[in-house]
């Protein structure tokens, strides 16, 4: 008995230690900034017009992005659910690729498509301008809509066959089906998605940096970057950072409290019966599906003509080898560490949920995902300043990048793994206890249940780590360059063909990873 309690405690301690380490990274970063300047935040900034316009724009663009992404994702998810359309698996894989697409690749594609000399720009009239709110919204929708489609589709799949059979028996009208079956099934997903997408767009950095500009199209995150890079005004950066942390953090907490994920959905549900849509609806679903394919593929295809814009014959492909390898190794190590940390952090959360200590579970969940709402720029610069006197960051900065990349992808791993593990606990915890399964047996039983989710989670965070540029743009050095940083430097010096080539390569690697992991998941 003592031995089993000790094992139980050691799991909890490992989980709490991982959580403490994650919190420590954020605390150390803020401490680094405050300690360096010897000043706190500049609260007078709150009444400044500049601050207010940035805050308003951050909220406006995030709210619009979220609203449009969800409104557009819903018909796509319905088309997939009702439509029985060809190549659905490929479409869903493409959705993942879009969600994790390195921002720089997307921006290069969007500029090639809708920029000043873009392929589609002549069709859009003279007043069209990609830069500003237009471009930011398009990029945010492109990144988040496919993710929303997958989540909404999953929520629709969780509707039991029996509900549909009952609806048919009771001769429900389409409106009744929508109101009494579909909307209640989607409500939780809508709520969670709206919070998640809002927070992602509110904290958006690379998209706004590339397509925004000026106080009229700047988010808090970009303003923090500008305050640190151009003025090195730490009090201003801190004020902006606290604002971002408080607003995004509070919203995230609210959504976590109000939203109900569908982890109680049980695996025994069978999906063999969905109502057949009418002929008009069927054509509508097909049209929506076709447009979605086009919308997702066009920015990728637009990269290809860029290759012919200048002479690539002088370009040595070997210039891409080292950055590609560095990116892959960095992403692999970051993702492996992040998924281990996430798994460990979920142990005390699962225990709190099982003991019905919901408030404790919520606090732990918030702490485990807090780096999603903490300003990445503050964390990177704060740690940089803190560590600069102790480490040669020019040569060993790669370790810091690894740490930061890992910290930034951990919340995604937690978000993805949590519902499946909680579902396992809800479904099988009593049975496991009653069967007196040993630790090894528990693992043997739990692993096949969690394996498909584990694989897709690992792929997701691997891809996110692969494309991250927010941090690397500060720490990158000549000793080691990553592929996103290379694209950034090519685009910065208007070497569009090279930027397109590097973007295509990065996209190809991402697509290969998505394909390989989707295959592994299906076989799991």
């Amino acid at each position, binding site marked *: 008995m003592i031995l089993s309690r000790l094992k139980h405690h050691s799991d909890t301690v490992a989980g709490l230690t991982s959580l403490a380490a994650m919190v420590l990274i954020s605390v150390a970063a803020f401490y680094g900034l405050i300690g360096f300047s010897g000043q706190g935040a500049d609260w007078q900034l709150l009444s400044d017009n500049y601050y207010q316009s940035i805050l308003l724009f951050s909220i406006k663009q995030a709210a619009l992005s979220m609203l449009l992404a969800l409104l557009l994702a819903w018909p796509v998810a319905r088309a997939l659910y009702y439509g029985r359309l060809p190549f659905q698996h490929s479409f869903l894989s493409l959705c993942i690729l879009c969600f994790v697409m390195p921002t720089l690749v997307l921006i290069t594609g969007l500029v090639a498509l809708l920029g000043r000399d873009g392929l589609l720009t002549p069709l859009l009239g003279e007043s069209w301008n990609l830069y500003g709110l237009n471009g930011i919204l398009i990029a945010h929708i492109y990144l988040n809509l496919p993710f929303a489609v997958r989540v909404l589709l999953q929520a629709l799949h969780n509707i039991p066959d029996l509900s549909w059979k009952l609806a048919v028996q009771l001769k429900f009208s389409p409106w009744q089906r929508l109101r009494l079956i579909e909307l209640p099934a989607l409500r939780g997903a809508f709520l969670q998605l709206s919070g998640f997408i809002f927070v992602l767009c509110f904290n958006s950095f690379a998209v706004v940096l590339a397509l925004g500009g000026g106080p009229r199209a700047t988010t808090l995150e970009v303003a923090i970057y500008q305050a640190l890079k151009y003025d090195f005004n730490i009090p201003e950066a801190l004020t902006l950072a606290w604002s971002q942390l408080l607003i995004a953090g509070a919203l995230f907490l609210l959504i976590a409290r109000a939203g109900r994920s569908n982890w109680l959905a049980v695996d025994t549900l069978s999906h063999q019966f969905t109502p057949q849509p009418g002929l008009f609806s069927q054509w509508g679903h097909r049209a929506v599906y076709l447009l979605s394919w086009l919308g997702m593929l066009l920015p990728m295809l637009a990269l290809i003509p860029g290759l012919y814009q200048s002479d690539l014959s002088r370009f040595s492909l070997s210039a891409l080898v080292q950055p590609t390898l560095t990116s892959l190794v960095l992403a692999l190590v970051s993702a492996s560490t992040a998924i281990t940390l996430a798994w460990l952090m979920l142990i005390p959360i699962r225990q709190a949920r099982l003991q019905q200590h919901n408030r404790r579970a919520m606090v732990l969940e918030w702490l485990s995902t807090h780096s999603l709402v903490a300003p990445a720029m503050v964390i990177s610069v704060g740690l940089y300043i803190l560590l600069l006197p102790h480490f040669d960051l020019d040569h060993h900065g790669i370790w810091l990048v690894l740490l930061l990349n890992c910290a930034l992808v951990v919340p995604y791993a937690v978000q993805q793994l949590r519902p499946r593990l909680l579902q396992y606990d809800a479904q099988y915890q009593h049975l496991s206890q009653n069967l*007196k399964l040993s630790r090894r047996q528990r693992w043997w039983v739990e692993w096949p249940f969690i394996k498909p989710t584990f694989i897709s989670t690992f792929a997701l965070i691997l891809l996110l780590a692969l494309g991250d540029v927010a941090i690397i743009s500060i720490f990158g050095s000549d000793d080691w360059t990553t592929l996103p940083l290379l694209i950034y430097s090519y685009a910065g010096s208007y070497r569009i063909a090279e930027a397109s080539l590097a973007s295509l390569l990065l996209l190809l690697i991402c697509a290969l990873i998505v394909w390989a992991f989707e295959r592994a998941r299906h076989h799991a």
Partner: protein
Amino acid sequence: MLEVDHLAIERDGTLLQYQLSVATGEILAIQGRSGVGKSTLLSALAGFVAPCQGDMRWQGQSLLGLPAEQRPVSMLFQDHNLFEHLSVRENLQLGFSGKAPAEALNAASVALQVSDLLDKKPPTLSGGQRQRIAIIRTLLRPEPIVLLDEPFAELDPSTRQLATSWTLHSARAQQKTVLLVTHQQEDVTRLADRAIELG
């Protein structure tokens, strides 16, 4: 002997109270209207519900201090008795401290007419087939107390008869102390030494 001594459990603002004893090797049927607390009693004995007063003793030793994993109890729940992602064979082998008794499991599978389902996964089985598989494992596990919560609810009349007679035979052969929650009088007649009505 299993003793439930002035046990009180609070559930949704209501205090449920229990007082009973079951001799070693006895089969006790528990009946009563829905919501009276039959399943709650089994959950408390298995260690999933904490009582607010009283005691539960097995052979004179209190069970209260023991976590669910260490109680001498094998329980059949109303649902979720099988891991959906494991095969029937893998499911049957769980819950034994050493090697699972292959011979006994095979014989039971034949007796309960599920021997051709061993390599299938639970989602492909009917409710009655799943229930029979869960009954086999619950009875064959080396725990002296067996708690059965509506074990035959999903079975048709002929498999019901088959399952009750196998359960009776198996429980007697292993000297199991069985608490059986059921709404069916025929289960009581076929299986139980004694029946009590809760509420």
